[in-house]
């Protein structure tokens, strides 16, 4: 099979494309919607909002999650906020400006038409969430409050204390729960997608594994939506929840869905540095803290005094010095590299000298402790619990960590992968953030996809299928996929080697972080590509999973996920190696300006790399979708 990438961007000016699309899209009449079954995998912001909305419209919807409840999806952990071009602050925001900021923030590696649509529907999201009872922060007059996030010079971020993701997800979950209660959605908890089934070129359904009893079951549908989140856990240590993984997207990829830009991963500048080798994950400190915190390191690498004892003149406020117009709010990739360079130059702070300061003393003096507590109280508490230090008295110590993955399943304007009937939404697709995502834009994208895009685009695909039979789960393709899944999971148990899945996960993570992390080089990537297959072979021979495949077995779940991380890791390194330029989160040390800024090569690389699976993870085929910039001129990103 060979892949065709048709982005299906509607004709017309950028401002009209989405309206034109909606006017031209085929519709399914209300009474006919219940004749269609749609499967939604994932119940995060993207999945829950899509499922609830499609059920409201009348489709029969089945939702799957490996969590014990849809409310636990990783979206719950987002802290900082959600962007929308409401211009409530009257500070010059507009749809065009949000569109422009997102394209620029993504270092001109995203598709204009999708991003513009995202900016357009952003305003509806806030209306919808308020109507559902999301308790966003308010000003004293009762109006919605906003804050600023990196990469923007306006205040367009809506927030609910430091728990914006939680409140938005609970909003979407409640809307989903209502549909479950009404009998319009069937919810499958603790059920993991283990394969995607295609019949005659169309997506026909999925195969799942019940995590409680190991049962492998097929489900057929007219269309399938993957809203399965990002793959940041390939690095082992990341800010993602423990169970986040790439299996769903990867299984779709293996069935023919192109995987786009896997090397575009985001490192978040403000996480709590690692403190000890048993550490299982890294904790993010919301970027919103950079509104009031100042990033600095001592000028002297041998500084031994505590932070407050270091006089102003001997501090280097790195971001304010390097990027005066954005200062501490420079975009994530830029801020992360500045921190890495400070630490690499020996000026890191903390017992392991592996962090930089994020200092609130000025803000506390200027605004008073109460205001700072009001804004960030729960984040400060969280920091103290983990680091054992009180940020009101001493500056936080922070360091970059893997946080978000811009790459993902390739989708067209309708959010459909190159497999007809298979859609991808939220972090699982590659669509809107180019090579770098701006803060507070992932929540926006997840909800845009689920509430305001998919419910329109899916009808366009379903309408012509009305009253035509679809293959049932007795079709041999389903039986084959079930067999393959059973064999795969039994296979892990049968290896009976000596090392746990966690051991291998840590090792893959180390290789990917060292060679395909914040800074990449040809040499390093080639090294990774020689080490990974060897380690993968060891995994296949020496894995140990105790217990069986017929009952709750968390080690077995992990084994399947680590297996897919191996294959993805190889593809990431290849993608990074082939992209001979630096852009956004992909920083190739060979391509930088004298000041150490990323150097793009628009001539050769203004395209999406979409990979086709061939059966061997080191031999995938690279396809291109050229990116055409009509509304925006390609420019070198500058935040100085």
């Amino acid at each position, binding site marked *: 099979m060979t892949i065709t990438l048709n982005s299906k961007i509607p004709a017309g000016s950028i401002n009209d494309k989405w309206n034109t699309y909606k006017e031209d899209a085929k519709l399914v009449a209300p009474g006919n919607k219940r004749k269609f079954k749609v499967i939604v995998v994932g119940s995060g912001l993207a999945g829950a909002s899509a499922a609830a909305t499609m059920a409201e419209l009348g489709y029969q919807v089945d939702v799957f999650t490996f969590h014990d409840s849809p409310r636990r999806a990783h979206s719950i952990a987002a802290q900082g906020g959600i962007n929308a071009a409401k211009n409530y602050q009257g500070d010059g925001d507009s749809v065009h400006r949000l569109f422009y900021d997102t394209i620029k923030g993504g270092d001109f590696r995203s598709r204009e038409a999708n991003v513009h649509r995202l900016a357009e529907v952003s305003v509806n999201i806030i209306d919808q969430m308020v109507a559902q009872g999301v308790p966003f922060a308010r000003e004293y007059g009762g109006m*919605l409050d906003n804050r600023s996030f990196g990469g923007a010079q306006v205040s367009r971020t809506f927030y*609910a204390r430091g728990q914006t993701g939680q409140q938005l997800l609970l909003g979407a979950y409640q809307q989903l729960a209502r549909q479950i209660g009404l009998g319009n959605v069937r919810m499958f908890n603790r059920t993991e997608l283990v394969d995607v089934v295609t019949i005659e070129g169309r997506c026909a359904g999925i195969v799942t594994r019940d995590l409680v009893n190991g049962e492998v079951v097929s489900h057929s549908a007219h269309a399938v939506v993957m809203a399965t989140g990002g793959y940041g856990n390939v690095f082992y240590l990341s800010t993602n929840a423990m169970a986040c993984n790439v299996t769903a997207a990867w299984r779709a990829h293996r069935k023919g869905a192109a995987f786009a830009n896997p090397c575009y991963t985001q490192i978040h500048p403000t996480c709590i540095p690692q403190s000890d080798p048993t550490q299982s994950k890294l904790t993010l400190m919301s970027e919103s803290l950079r509104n009031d915190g100042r990033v600095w390191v001592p000028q002297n690498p041998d500084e031994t005094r505590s932070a407050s004892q270091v006089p102003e003149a001997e501090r280097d406020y790195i971001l304010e010095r390097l990027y005066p117009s954005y200062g501490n709010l420079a975009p994530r990739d830029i801020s992360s590299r500045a921190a890495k360079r400070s630490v690499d130059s020996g000026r890191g702070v903390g017992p392991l000298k592996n962090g930089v300061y994020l200092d609130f003393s000025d803000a506390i003096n200027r605004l008073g402790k109460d205001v700072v507590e009001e804004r960030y109280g729960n984040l400060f508490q969280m920091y103290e619990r983990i680091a054992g230090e009180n940020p009101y008295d001493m500056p936080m110590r922070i360091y970059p960590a893997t946080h978000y993955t811009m790459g993902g399943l390739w989708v067209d304007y309708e959010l459909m992968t190159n497999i007809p009937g298979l859609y991808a939404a939220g972090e699982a697709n590659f669509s809107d953030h180019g090579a770098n995502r701006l803060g507070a834009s992932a929540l926006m994208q997840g909800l845009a996809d689920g509430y305001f895009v998919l419910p329109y685009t899916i009808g366009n695909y379903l309408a012509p299928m009305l009253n035509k039979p679809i293959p049932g789960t007795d079709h041999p393709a389903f039986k084959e996929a079930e067999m393959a899944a059973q064999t795969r999971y039994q296979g892990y148990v049968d290896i009976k080697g000596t090392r746990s899945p966690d051991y291998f996960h840590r090792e893959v993570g180390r290789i990917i972080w060292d060679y395909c992390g914040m800074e990449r080089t040809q040499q390093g990537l080639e090294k990774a590509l020689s080490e990974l297959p060897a380690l993968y072979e060891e995994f296949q021979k020496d894995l140990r999973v105790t217990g069986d495949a017929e009952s709750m077995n968390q080690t077995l779940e992990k084994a399947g996920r680590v297996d897919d991380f191996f294959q993805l890791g190889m593809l990431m390194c290849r993608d990074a190696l082939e992209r001979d330029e630096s852009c956004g989160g992909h920083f190739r040390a060979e391509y930088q300006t004298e000041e150490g800024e990323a150097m793009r090569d628009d001539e050769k690389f203004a395209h999406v790399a979409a990979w086709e699976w061939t059966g061997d993870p080191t031999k995938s085929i690279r396809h291109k979708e050229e990116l055409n910039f009509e509304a925006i001129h390609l420019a070198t990103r500058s935040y100085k």
Partner: protein
Amino acid sequence: MSNHLKNLKLKIWRQSGPTDKGHFEDHIMPEISDEASFLEMLDVLNEGLIGENKLPVVFDHDCREGICGTCSLMINGQAHGPERSTATCQLHMRKFKSGDEIVIEPWRASAFPIIKDLMVDRSAFDRIIESGGFISANTGGAPDANLIPIPKSVADAAMDSAQCIGCGACVAACPNGAANLFTAAKIAHLNLLPQGQAERFKRTEAMVETMDEYFGSCTNHGECEAACPKEISIDVIALMNKDYRKSKFKNRKEISRS
């Protein structure tokens, strides 16, 4: 900077499935950094068990940031352990000392059947939300978000209740296995907001009655509040009770009118 704890005696509940009787199993943790989190200590134990070809201890967890509500351990008889307003995953070993005996059990409540070892089934919580824990506002057609100003104090009070992470510690801590704090937190969140008024009494009645179907009754012990990692105040229960009484009255009137 980091210190090490030595020789922890772990007593861990093992139960192979819902019908198994279950028993305590003893383990020694010879050494662990005080920077490690409680769950990281269990990770280390599990790696060791796999190393010995044994079955690792099953427990629920995910975000490890105190927000998803998945983690759920009874530690020395306290839901989420000894640190106030802290979920299990945010508890660090610096709260313990060398030689301590630590008893680790699952949530114990009849509405939360044990799946395996320390993992329980909390789907009864979902049933409560499905019965009314929402505002019926279909996608599309919502008015501008600033159309209805909400006083900051009201938004803040709604947010205080909305912070519930659905962990179930309140139920586990309650001698009656009641879910009043969880249910009332959601009712308070929605009933305080102007957007939640239309369904206020219908919501309250449905949620309370679903809660009663699955969970025990509240006799005002207050253990729930003490165990809650999000410091949900027990005052929300009074609010729920008040709205429930009103709902009985109002809904009856509505029925007689229809």
